[in-house]
């Protein structure tokens, strides 16, 4: 079982994404993204169970919420 991290542009957009996903019953949490994975330092993302990742991405895009490339992460 693994999680994915969906990088977000800001803490605010991460909160927005988290609430959007949660309103559809999906389990996500806002986490700090390892700065080594970004070019610009501190950032936030959504931790999503792998089975829900595609749904969460779809939801973000439907709401017009920007996100980065998914990062795989062993739980």
């Amino acid at each position, binding site marked *: 079982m693994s999680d994915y991290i969906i990088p977000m*542009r*800001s*803490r*605010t*957009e991460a*909160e*927005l994404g988290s*609430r959007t996903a949660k309103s559809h019953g999906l389990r996500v949490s*806002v*986490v*700090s993204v390892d*700065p080594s994975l970004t*070019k*610009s*330092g*501190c*950032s*936030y993302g959504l931790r999503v169970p792998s089975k829900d990742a595609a749904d969460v991405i779809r939801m973000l895009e439907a709401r017009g919420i920007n996100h980065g490339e998914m990062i795989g992460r062993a739980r």
Partner: protein
Amino acid sequence: MNNIIYLDNAATTNPKPGCVLRAVEKAILHCSGNPGRGSHPIAARASELVFDTRETAAAMFGASAENVVFTPGATYALNYAIKGLSKAGCLILIDNYAHNASYRPCLSLAKNGVCRLKVYDASASDEETVNNVRRLIEDENTVVIATHHSNVSSKILPVRRIGEVCASAGCKFIVDAAQSAGHIPIDLQKDNITALCIPSHKGLYGISGAGLLISARDARYRTTIEGGAGISSLDEDMPDILPERLEAGTLPLPAIASIKAGAEFVSSIGTSTISGYESRLARRFMNGISKKDRIRVHGDCGGSVISFTVDGITPAEVGEWLADRGICVRTGYHCAPLAHRTLGTYASGSVRIGLSYFNTSDEIDRTVYALDLLCRTK
């Protein structure tokens, strides 16, 4: 405190609703992490509270949560908006009721040769006011500023109609809602507002130390303050997205919690109910002083703000007389020289009464009685 009559609500509302006090306490007790800085449980709680407040404010003022920026107050919000949206060489139009919170940033830009500044008349007729704005707009770079509700009188500018003019000219529209938020419905989209500036501690019944700058989706700001934003730490520049672009440094969490609770309090009662109640109190005051020849009311007086002077007695003396009887009013210029020029009180300033939902008819009657006594004694 029971004998105090607080009529300085245009400066800061007092008392605060119980829900605001509880929200502030809860924020300090349970959420005292740094919002947007880390994802441990306490920081996360703080971030969630901040986002909840963005959503509450966005819903109240017709905006999106991510376009709600927290500032140290409405003055900062106005500075961010005026200095961040005005392009070099542009014309700024400001109304003749403006508070120094908007007027001085404009003067600063004009004196430094960054922009040009013209003052338009907010006339007795809304039609004329709108035409005054329309006549002066040069092009899409013009920035129009409107004081939605004066802080010296109850003058209200036709924001929706001015917004329509700005939208059709493609120019930016900044609204100082320091006195109107919580009293008059405002909808960022319907009113075509680019930047809406609101304090926590007035009509939203929050505590001091925070304000809101709520922006249209397409608003692009130059920064006025730079610093840590919690994201993009390795970049030299502030993030290019709202709200983080304009939120350098740690946010004032207790004050933000108070905005949420205060805005919910206002929404639960309704702005029209609040303003209707305040108008009834204003009428009661006006009826009470109507036969006192020495008292002169200046400008519009049907809403939450009434300015007056007493012949032969300075505003400061009137304020002192009332303060001696436990009645709190504001005297002087109320940081609004343009408004006093407009109202003809530039020489003396005025005594200002600012009403809130917590004032009572009895308080108005006791104030009228104190003024009656003053007129008969001095």
